[in-house]
């Protein structure tokens, strides 16, 4: 017979040894949900911060697997940063509950929702599962892809970092000023394309790039998903193909995670070109920072919708 009490005591002893592991802190530990947020935090805080991102750049954020390292990082974090508007609803509340870190719970100085102050688009007029699965009651959450988002997120991060670590406020303000200046210079670089693309029309797989496309004056006519998070039936695809032909829409915008057989079927039905765009920092080569991500988005849009004298590349 196995001795019950001694087994339990041995278990407790073995486990409690780990409690004495050193957790020496020199840098402020920041955990972000997206690598885009991590990049901007690093730009502001530099060496003062140790920044970990839960997502690595290529995931579908609606069904993101969380790794053991995310649990450990959240447990040790001084500040957790989310994009907000419900984007992280599938994994962040559970992670915060499991991480057991009082310092980063909602309502504390260690919890930052970057969506505060952002004006969301596409707030559903009514909420019902009839309207879809990946519904976002607060509006479209993919605003980090807007060319305007860099400065907004930097502002929110500065406020949070100063609150959390007032002793380094001067350094954070300097880092923020330098970064915002770089973003403003980059926006001047991106702006001319918007004049050229105004009025272009596309179909998207999911309502993911709306902020970006609107910044460039591109209109989304429809989505491949008949409702958010719902896969299309052959009938849905046929109906959409018919509409695309009627409206002469020849571009389907998708992220790498959603560049699937439905997108390919629609392209086959219509002859449209699939335009795959990186959906966050790290989603494609050469997108290691938020500014590089926007440069790449700008480059791919420009290539797909070239100036009349440049000739259009279909693939």
């Amino acid at each position: 017979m196995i001795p019950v009490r001694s087994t339990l005591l041995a278990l407790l002893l073995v486990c409690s040894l780990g409690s004495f592991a050193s957790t020496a802190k020199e840098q402020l530990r920041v955990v972000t949900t997206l690598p885009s947020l991590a990049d901007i935090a690093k730009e502001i805080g530099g060496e003062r911060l140790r920044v970990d991102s839960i997502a690595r750049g290529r995931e579908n954020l609606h069904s993101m697997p969380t790794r053991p390292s995310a649990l450990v990082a959240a447990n040790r974090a001084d500040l957790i940063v989310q994009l907000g508007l419900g984007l992280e609803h599938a994994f962040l509340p559970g992670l915060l509950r499991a991480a057991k870190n009082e310092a980063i719970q909602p309502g504390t100085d260690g919890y930052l929702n970057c969506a505060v102050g952002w004006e969301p688009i596409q707030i559903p007029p009514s909420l019902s599962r009839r309207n879809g699965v990946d519904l976002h009651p607060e509006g479209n959450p993919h605003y980090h892809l807007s060319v305007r988002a860099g400065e907004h997120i930097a502002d929110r991060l500065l406020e949070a970092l100063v609150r959390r670590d007032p002793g380094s406020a001067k350094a954070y303000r300097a880092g923020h000023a330098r970064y915002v200046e770089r973003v403003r210079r980059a926006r001047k670089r991106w702006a001319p394309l918007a004049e050229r693309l105004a009025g272009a029309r596309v179909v998207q797989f999911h309502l993911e790039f709306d902020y970006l496309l609107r910044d460039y004056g591109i209109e989304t006519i429809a989505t491949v998903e008949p409702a958010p998070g719902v896969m299309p039936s052959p009938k849905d695809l046929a109906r959409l193909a018919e509409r695309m032909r009627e409206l002469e829409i020849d571009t389907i915008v998708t992220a790498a995670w959603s560049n699937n057989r439905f997108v390919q079927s629609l392209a086959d039905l219509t002859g449209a070109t699939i335009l795959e765009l990186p959906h966050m920092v790290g989603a494609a080569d050469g997108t290691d920072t938020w500014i590089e991500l926007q440069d790449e988005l700008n480059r791919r849009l420009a290539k797909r919708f070239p100036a009349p004298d440049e000739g259009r590349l279909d693939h």
Partner: protein
Amino acid sequence: MLPLRLLPFAAFAAFPLSAQDLGFQSPGRSQYFQRLPQDQFTNQFNPAFGAVFDGFLDYRDIDGGDGGFDLQLRILELNVSGAIDPGAYGYVALVSENAEAPEIEEAAVVLDRLPGTAELKIGRFFVDFGKLMQTHVEELRTLERPLPLREYLGEELGGVGVQFDYWMPLNETTPVRFSVGAFSSLLGEGHHHEDEDEPEPEAEVADLKDFNDLSFTARLTGMTELGDNAILQAGASGRFVPNFSFAFDGLAEADLSNTVLGLDLTYQHTDDSGQKRFLLGGEYVAIDGDLSAEVDDPLAPTTLTVSNSTASGYYAFCDYGWNPRWSAGVQFARAEELEGGSDVEELDLYVTWASTELRRLRFGVTLADAEVDEQRAYLQFTNFFGAHFHATKW
């Protein structure tokens, strides 16, 4: 028409009824309940409600017996969950099986703001044993719980008790968790076989007992990352029933005990997008102690004999999800029967389609190699309405 001067008296006479509806407070009742909120604020203060509807159409072919189709509404589950105050949350799972009277499978309060990562769960809840015993049957990869768990712990194993839970990071990528639980009773349903018509001795735990005679559980598990895309989790679990008895028609054998131990290993690999997922895992389960009892003559018993022995079994599975909607898998299980000691094997093959994360359809085949062989094909349909929460641990 009442005379005007009688109106105050009429209002006073009507007052007790309306006061009760409005939550009127009077001296002598519990001060705590008097302080509860009397209006509904917004809906966000209310607990979340959800339901699960799980059923199947199956065809069974039993060697030497009847075969045929069946259609069952297996599970209808009602969930309620929500925060109680800043230091605790609670949840309830009320389950009706096969459209029979509902039972409370879980009703627990979790104190989650204890020092460090500690948590204390109090109430009735499923045991923390392996990766699957916390899970309700409709959420499993297969139609039924794996064979050795069913045989040694029961189709589901819950009890009224208290469980302490704690986790800690060993390094940046490796958290380790342990739990210990004490329960009034944790005698599962594994000692009985529902198909057997003959009455059997019942296992019982005394209502009042010493602390040492409570039933206990313990689990130690850790997970770590293998590269950028893989996670490995290993765990060890125990369930200890230190004092119970077998009774049958006036006969009883007391001071019995048994222990179940399990070792589990799960490997998961996902692609960069998180869309494709490969799972490989298994669990070894062993039971030791007083496992079963029989009487010489069920109609006129004179002796009750308890069998003290050891039995073991295991299951292993692999499951591949090639996108978030589709997955397929295979599971093989083997276990020594508690009564008779012969080996039983089960092979499960299945394909699952989740049209959304709230609606699932599964086609599967189960081939059982036992004293009486059985083949079963089924189409399982599971629907989740609204919130679904069970406070399961990793």
